[in-house]
């Protein structure tokens, strides 16, 4: 494996770019993905029927309270749709999307390359493995080193024989309780981070204590926690003290879910707290007041059809069009907005020197 020095660069699906060229960046999205790992077959006939309907205006009311209970809704599978949706981000002033569909989310390297070519956006591809429920069977027998080598190859050579290289390790999936396979992937991801200098993205467990344990596992394995983001801190309703512990360990805090129209619903026996954009902004303002501005990353995490504007959702331009004006009303300074939308993702997404 030939190793290029990526330090200070960002690796997109079309090649390396200077970190300064990223502009307004969404650090956590999906353009082509399948979320069917989350699907659970309902028991009742009526619900089974709803689960199999195509997404339409008439069933959004059900879908938004039952995600991921509709199979069609779990599939972001159409390149042309993705291009059209991503263009809304571009024409509103956006430049870069980190597309973190890892293995288990039906990552599509060539599809992402097509979207980058068609839109002119910087698209950064993920690597590694999502939650245990989506792990391929062979992962059971793979060693930590083998998993790490696979990720490193994705970053240095490309995914499979596509030649399309990953620019981020993640999103790495964790469940509640944390599974053995997930622990192994976490440690392998750290190895890959040490050898490549790539940013690391964690989809944490839906539980405060397990998530803090995950941060410990990463730290003990030697991760660069200052180059790691813990996602979903808002929808998983982590306690304020948990957030501060994560940030004090050095990690970024991922606030996704802006513009998410999903209704709070039970997930893994707990209430998934979709709140609203203003709640998130108020929480972020609190963190900024406590000195954590440099730890904040925000995105929509579009991962179901009903997030897309063609299916009645708010789409990839929502933060630029609707959230940034509200940030100004809520008295975020231009410097703070610039930090959240440009500087923090730029710092996070660029490669560091490998630590080996």
């Amino acid at each position, binding site marked *: 494996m030939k190793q290029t020095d990526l330090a200070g660069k960002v690796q997109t699906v079309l090649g390396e770019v200077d970190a300064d060229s990223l502009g307004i960046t969404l650090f956590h999205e999906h353009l082509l993905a399948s979320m069917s790992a989350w699907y659970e077959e309902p028991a009742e006939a009526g619900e089974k029927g709803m689960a199999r309907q195509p997404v339409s*205006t008439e069933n*959004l009311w059900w879908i938004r309270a039952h995600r991921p209970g509709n199979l069609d809704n779990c599939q972001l599978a159409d390149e042309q749709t993705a291009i059209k949706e991503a263009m809304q981000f571009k024409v509103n002033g956006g430049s870069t999307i980190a597309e973190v569909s890892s293995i288990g989310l039906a990552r599509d390297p060539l599809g992402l390359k097509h979207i980058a070519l068609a839109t002119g956006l910087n698209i950064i591809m993920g690597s590694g493995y999502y939650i245990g429920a989506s792990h391929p069977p062979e992962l059971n027998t793979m060693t930590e080193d083998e998993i790490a080598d696979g990720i490193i190859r994705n970053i240095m050579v490309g995914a499979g024989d596509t030649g399309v290289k990953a620019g981020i390790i993640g999103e790495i999936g964790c469940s509640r309780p944390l599974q053995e396979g997930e622990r192994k992937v976490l440690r392998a991801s750290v190895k890959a981070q040490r050898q490549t200098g790539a940013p690391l993205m964690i989809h944490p467990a839906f539980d405060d204590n397990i998530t803090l344990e995950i941060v410990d596992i990463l730290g003990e394995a030697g991760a660069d926690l200052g180059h790691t983001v813990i996602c979903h801190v808002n929808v998983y309703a982590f306690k304020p003290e948990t957030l501060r512990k994560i940030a004090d360990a050095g990690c970024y805090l991922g606030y996704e879910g802006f513009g998410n129209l999903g209704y709070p619903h039970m997930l893994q026996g707990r209430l998934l707290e979709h709140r609203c954009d*203003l709640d998130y902004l108020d929480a972020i303002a609190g963190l900024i007041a406590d000195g954590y501005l440099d730890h904040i990353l925000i995105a929509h995490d579009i991962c179901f059809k009903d997030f897309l504007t063609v*299916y009645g959702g708010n789409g990839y331009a929502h933060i630029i069009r609707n959230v940034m004006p509200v940030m100004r009303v809520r008295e975020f300074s231009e410097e703070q907005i610039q930090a959240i939308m440009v500087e923090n993702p730029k710092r996070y997404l660029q490669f560091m020197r490998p630590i080996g």
Partner: protein
Amino acid sequence: MQRTDLTGKAQTVLGVIDGECLGITSSHEHIIWDMSAYFEEPESTSEKELARQPVSMENLHLIRARPHINIDNMVQTDEQTAINELMHFKYAGGGTLVELSQNGLARDPLALARIARATGLNIIMGSGYYVGLSHPEDMDDKTEKDIADEIVRDITAGVSDTGVRSGIIGEIGCSLPLTDNERKVLHACAIAQRRTGAPINIHPSIDDDVMLENITILKDAGADLKRVAISHVDGFGYSLSTRLKVLESGCLVEYDGFGQAIFHFFYMGRIANAMSDIQKITDIMELIDEGYLDRILLAQDFCFKCCLATYGGYGYAHIIRNLIPFMKAKGMTEEQIHALLVDNPRRFLEFAPAED
């Protein structure tokens, strides 16, 4: 004018019923309405185009961000759509809706009677005047007594020659600042309340102090504040301490924007719909701790097409289907939920003895 004694009864568009028959009640809704009087003509060409499109899955993301910018979004005049929508509420276990599209929102008594027959739901119709912007041209010439007479006639004889009677005074519109005619209407409501024993629902001014003054005006005019509900306490950006002041004055507080935090928009310099459902429930639980369980009403106040299930919204069953499980998950008891959705609206909607 023949006067029936309504004491202890509720008056629906199909006649007088026992309060015990109301069941689960949504205290503030619109079923069939025309709000196009509040359409704001946009300046830019692309927005003018958007303004005249029919609401569709493809433009919902734009319309939700600025619900007053699209004419079709502000008009729901189709009876069959209304019936389909209300059946969601009925199937979910709902019994009664309070329909507050009075003068200024294109109230349609005969349509409401037909919809009540078609659905088997109790529909209680409003009376009086909405905000000044919607007042009729001859409003300056009307005296307090003229307006009070109109309201009393709506309640005792029926609206014009339809024979369909109002069961509540409201929603009475108050702007910021309050106009002279709105003040006159508030006085007239107090008079009509004393003559009929009807409950009053106020759409208050969107400012904490001016709203509290709306209440003082009613009180000074002799209204029974225990029979007055203040709408939009959740959506208009009031502080919790202001809500407590409303309760101390004797009025009920109405959280009527459930399901609406998916769009916040700028309204008279404030961000409307800024509170998520989770925040509302947390807030209500605080008021319950303060001893105000019996003084709280809930509703969804759908007045845009994009709220309806037909057009990608949550629909009228949102509170029952999505919110009740979530209130329980947050620790509310069955008794508390029953008070909010059944007992409180029943007590409020039952007529008190007429005073004069």
